């Protein structure tokens, strides 16, 4: 039995159910002792058919469906959708609404990065950092609950503006919250860059050079940690970003430690932005009327989710239901970097490399059908899909 095992490749599945993954996804690492020699991935476990579902709902209902693509980046999905619809209908939301959209988006970025810090620390076995960073994340969750009414899925957007307003008591709460979080973040930056045991798990692990990053198409903080200067908030500002701009944060090291540092420094930027918006919130209405039937057209809407660039393609045919919405989420672009940088590292580094790109599996699953033979568009109904699935697994 030993001879047989030596000649076959030893494949460790980090599989749909695994304590390392918070959401299902299948990875197969071919291992030689402890060194990984090959990696493959299979996604699609959280496919919910949202792109199809939104075609049956009117524009307003679609907003709430799209918000639920992901739990951690729900506001940016809704914002991208709302911005796209407003572009199609050729209207501009009022400045106060845009500023509040940016405020909630930055608060969401803070919450997502703190969540990621805890999860990545947990993957590396550093449970204390996990517990402490999630304790501090409760501050921003409480702030979001005070402002928007819910801790996740904030539903702050409506087509044409926002539905929430900020009064003075909330502004004070926001300022206090930001002060507390900034002090704690300074401490975490020190821990992440100076703790010996943690550096042993993150320094020089998962190095991705600038050329590799541009070749593999890494975006978001993963790409910025390798020096790729791409940030949608800076390249093509949307919502309130023309008035309250953000500074791009990059690093050149390209290893796991750089990804930690980039995200923590982005937290500083977010704190600064939240304070600025709270101090200079423009006056005015909150919404603008949007017609029920959106005029025909196609539009592209890009926003910067906490994980990278979120891309919406929206097509309208003049009725009150969308014709086609295509969502390309940032995590989809970063998988290539995982599979390439994993080779040559030890098996014990795999969970941290996986966590380093901040994967959000539920954002990911869109159906891509590559059929080499046919070139015209196809419409499949339910029976065709079932039959295809049955044939595929035979």
């Amino acid at each position, binding site marked *: 039995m030993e001879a047989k095992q030596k000649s076959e490749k030893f494949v460790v599945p980090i599989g749909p159910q695994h304590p390392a993954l918070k959401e299902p996804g299948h990875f197969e690492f071919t291992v030689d002792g402890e060194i990984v020699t090959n990696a493959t991935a299979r996604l699609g476990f959280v496919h919910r058919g949202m792109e199809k579902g939104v075609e049956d*709902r*009117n524009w*307003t*209902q679609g*907003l*709430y*469906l799209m918000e*639920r693509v992901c739990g951690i980046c729900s506001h940016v999905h809704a914002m991208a959708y709302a911005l796209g619809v407003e572009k199609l209908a050729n209207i501009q939301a009022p400045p106060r609404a845009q500023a509040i959209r940016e405020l909630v988006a930055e608060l969401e970025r803070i919450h997502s990065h703190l969540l990621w810090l805890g999860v990545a620390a947990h993957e590396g076995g550093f449970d*204390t*950092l996990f517990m*402490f960073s999630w*304790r501090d994340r409760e501050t921003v969750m*409480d702030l979001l*609950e*005070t*402002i*928007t*009414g*819910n801790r996740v*899925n904030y*539903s702050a957007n*409506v087509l044409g503006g926002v*539905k*929430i307003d900020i009064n003075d008591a909330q502004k004070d709460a926001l300022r206090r919250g930001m002060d507390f979080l900034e002090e704690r973040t300074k*401490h975490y930056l*020190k*821990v992440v860059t*100076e*703790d*010996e*045991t943690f*550096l042993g798990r993150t320094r020089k692990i998962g190095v991705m050079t600038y050329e590799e990053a541009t070749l593999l198409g890494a975006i978001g903080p993963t790409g910025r940690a390798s020096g790729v200067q791409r940030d949608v908030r800076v390249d093509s500002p949307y919502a309130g970003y023309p008035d309250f701009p953000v500074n791009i944060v990059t690093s050149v090291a390209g290893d796991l430690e750089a990804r930690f540092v980039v995200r923590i420094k982005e937290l500083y930027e977010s704190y600064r932005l939240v304070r600025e918006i709270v101090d200079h919130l423009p006056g005015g209405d909150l919404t603008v009327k949007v017609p029920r039937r959106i005029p025909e057209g196609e539009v592209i809407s890009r926003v910067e989710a906490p994980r990278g660039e979120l891309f919406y393609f929206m097509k309208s045919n003049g009725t009150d239901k969308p014709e086609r919405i295509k969502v390309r989420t940032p995590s989809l672009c970063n998988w290539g970097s995982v599979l390439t940088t994993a080779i040559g590292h030890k098996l014990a580094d795999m969970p941290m490399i996986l966590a380093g790109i901040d994967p959000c599996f539920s954002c990911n699953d869109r159906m891509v059908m590559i059929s080499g033979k046919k070139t015209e568009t196809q419409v499949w109904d339910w029976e065709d899909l079932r039959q295809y699935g049955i044939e595929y697994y035979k």
Partner: protein
Amino acid sequence: MTIGSMLGDVVKSFFKKPVTEKYPFVRQEAPENLRGKLVWDPEKCTGCMLCVKDCPSNALELIVLDKVNKRFVMKYNLDQCTFCAQCVINCRFSCLNMSEEQWELASTKKEPFEVYYGREEDVKFLLEKAARGEAEESCKED
């Protein structure tokens, strides 16, 4: 390069109270913007049905008893509601709002999840009609 950089945190938290809230024995106040259960005021409703049209999960149903005299009963499916508050925004007469006190909505039976809002007599009328309708149907089956 430090070893044990979280030492300060660790030692301090040994002497502090734990940060865990012992819910349900200790309950925090809900913020005033919390989007809890939906509440409908039948007096000002004109029956425009904008709330029903835009609900993402079809949780609202407006049953018309008398359109001229504006007698409506709203059937609210609590288990389908996503608490998005779009209906609150849509209503031009402020009939709807989301309560910040009723947010502990778990239940072991199905009945609390079908909520009927309206004037007392309207709701009673509707429920009796439904009961009679069911009784007639079961008679028909026999």
